[in-house]
């Protein structure tokens, strides 16, 4: 079963604009991670945020976490055509030892 739900399902923006994707989950967590997937192949880890953190930055990425609402957001600033990909959030579940993924957001950045 999939715990996370991302929205929107698809997002199309112009190069240079910011892209925001949201993720909601159901159970308590230790951490939440965001991954990127190009062309349906392997996933690449972007950022991990722990349950006691509220915000984290990595380059053009900004992730927020609101454990009271069981939600997270991923912001990509100054988007580039190369950012075109699917983005997934994944949670570990409080007692789990496995990553549980959402269905993902398909991001298309037009140049």
């Amino acid at each position, binding site marked *: 079963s999939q715990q996370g739900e991302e929205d929107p399902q698809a997002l199309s923006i112009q190069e240079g604009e910011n892209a925001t994707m949201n993720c909601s989950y159901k159970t308590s967590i230790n*951490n939440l991670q965001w991954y990127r997937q190009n062309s349906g192949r*392997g996933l690449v880890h972007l950022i*991990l945020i722990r349950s006691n953190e509220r915000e984290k930055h990595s380059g053009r990425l900004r992730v927020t976490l609101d454990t009271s609402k069981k939600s997270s957001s991923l912001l990509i600033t100054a988007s580039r055509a190369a950012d075109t990909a699917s983005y997934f959030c994944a949670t570990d579940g409080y007692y789990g030892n496995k990553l549980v*993924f959402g*269905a993902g957001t398909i991001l298309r950045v037009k140049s």
Partner: protein
Amino acid sequence: GAGVSQTPSNKVTEKGKYVELRCDPISGHTALYWYRQSLGQGPEFLIYFQGTGAADDSGLPNDRFFAVRPEGSVSTLKIQRTERGDSAMYLCASSLIGGLNTEAFFGQGTRLTVV
């Protein structure tokens, strides 16, 4: 190796046949995960190994699916009597330690097509 390696990258098999999918994790990573991904969906957990043992196999859909990791490194996912519904991308990931406060490194996947 430099990353997680999965072979073959593509596999086409006939319904009812047996297939094996291989995963070479990053050297030294004790944790290894198998996921299955259908088109337009997120990866779905199948099984997690810590060392040689399957710590969690709750995601295996039925007894046609089995995975091994006999020496704590390479893992093989085995599917018996394949069905068309088994067609999907099969992803393997490894991480340095068990538990998920560290990132998982994914291979490029094996795309299985059952005809």
